[in-house]
């Protein structure tokens, strides 16, 4: 059941320059699964008009939810101004969720790029609490970005974690897809599911690697969102269908996604979005 409400801000603090953690009280019970998201906006703010999509980062109790976000443009800048006790307009939970099979011999490989980490923390928590053999790859632009993207929370889970930064300021230098590829080359992909969330180019590369090593791969996609609940049909992604682009070619990221099997995505058609 979707909840459309004014939630009260409990805190909205900077984790690192350009990255913030927003915690809001919904004053009612909210059921959220890992990978789902909300549409959020500072209450009564006139510009920008549209709410912004943010993944649910964490749930405390049944009513308090936190969001980890990067301050990029007008929408997240407006959100960054919101103070304790203020209201945010919120609609949630939205989208599908990360499916976790708990079969004993199943393996999970989580790949997070940048703020894509926000979408996978709850998943990682669930994996850490389960018997699944889970491995975490996390790439960020820099040490600052890694901190801002919740490195501390991810590390605290105790899962094996491989960290890369583009500039080498923390962990291995380079893109997160490099250690992922090594890992799979070592045969670690057998029976595994890859869960990936990050920039488009990263996910595209992860999808290629997964295909190459024949590993099941799920990606959580981003798209500019008008509504978040399926009515504007603005957030679509092109999906592989038999034959040319046709009626079934586009799926809504907000409703049929945001999580899709990587091999169903027409990566080339959507390239312009990113």
């Amino acid at each position, binding site marked *: 059941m979707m909840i459309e409400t004014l939630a009260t801000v409990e805190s909205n603090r900077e984790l690192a320059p350009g990255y913030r953690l927003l915690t809001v009280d919904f004053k009612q019970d909210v059921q959220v699964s890992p990978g789902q998201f909300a549409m959020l906006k500072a209450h009564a703010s006139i510009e920008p008009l549209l709410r912004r999509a943010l993944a649910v980062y964490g749930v405390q109790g049944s009513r308090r939810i936190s969001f980890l976000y990067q301050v990029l443009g007008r929408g997240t800048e407006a959100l960054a101004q919101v103070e304790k006790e203020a209201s945010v307009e919120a*609609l949630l939970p939205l989208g599908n969720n990360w499916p976790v099979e708990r079969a004993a011999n199943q393996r999970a490989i989580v790949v997070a790029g940048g703020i894509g980490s926000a979408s996978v923390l709850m998943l990682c928590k669930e994996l850490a609490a389960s018997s699944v053999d889970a491995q975490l790859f996390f790439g960020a632009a820099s040490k600052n970005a890694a901190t801002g993207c919740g490195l501390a929370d991810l590390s605290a889970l105790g899962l094996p974690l491989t960290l890369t930064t583009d500039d080498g300021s923390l962990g291995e230098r380079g893109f997160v897809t490099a250690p992922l590829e090594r890992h799979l080359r070592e045969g670690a992909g057998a029976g595994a599911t890859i869960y990936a969330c990050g920039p488009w180019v990263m996910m595209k590369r992860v999808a290629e690697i997964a295909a190459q090593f024949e590993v099941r791969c799920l990606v959580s996609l981003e798209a500019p969102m008008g*509504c978040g609940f399926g009515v504007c049909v603005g957030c679509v992604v092109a999906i592989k269908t038999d034959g040319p682009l046709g009626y079934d070619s586009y799926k809504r990221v907000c409703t049929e996604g945001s999580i899709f099997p990587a091999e169903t995505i027409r990566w080339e058609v959507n390239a312009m979005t990113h």
Partner: protein
Amino acid sequence: MAEAINHDPRLAIEIAGIRFHNPVIGASGTFGYGLEFAELIDLNRLGGFATKGLSARPLSGNPPPRIVETHGGMLNAIGLQNIGARAFIKEKLPQLRGYDTQIIANVFGYSDDDYIEAISILNDGEGIVAYELNISCPNVKEGGIVIGNSPESAARLTEKARRASTRPLIVKLSPNVTDVTLVARAIADAGADCLSLINTIVGMSVDVNTRRPRLSYGTGGLSGPAIRPIAVRMVYEVARAVDVPLIGIGGIACASDALEFIIAGATAIQIGTANYYDPTVTMKVIDGLSAHCQSNGIEKLNSITKSILTE
């Protein structure tokens, strides 16, 4: 059947013999097939809604990116992605009939024949109260011509649709014209029961880093509060040019916005883009209109349609 609701009788209106609980209608393309709002608002309180544009056959729409936000509005080039008239009747109408709200089928085609075919299919759909012809979508110019931009082609299609339709006919006007009253008059003379206006205004936004348009289609349709003054002006002009009732559309986000259109000449209004960023906006506008009647001693809201004072 729907539960009993206390509708404010002051807000009730009638257009072409169709009774609406109130003049607040969800705009086509922003209200999906209605059912998406069932969890968010009480559809039984709503005056009505117009479906996403339905064509005879399903359409895939344009590649992404399809939307981009601008100052006070947004551009879209969805390209009329829809499930098709037959699927609408089969998959959506049965559920929709459970709600006590008026369902307007918005109809789209690339040619006159396409429109007529879609209408013929929809004529069998039980529960639809009227058609709204979208002859003004800026994002699907086949051959470069938008039917609604010329009085002649608009009148021709209206006449054909009038004959094909078993239901009242609303025709939705394009704002991308030099003189909206010319097209309006031609369409009214051709037999339309009601005009709705405005559709989106053609616009473009450029990514200065990639030097590409921000929409894959290139141009898109501008909607939202940014266009409201243009829409109000067109409703004002058309109300002076034709005698059929008007439905005002364009950037409505609160009751006062709706009242601007009503005072300028609209019998009802549609809310589009605001549904995206405020999913319960239709309910808020209905409440706000009641409050306005209350505080101004208005017994029938439709008594102030076209009450604008100009010397």
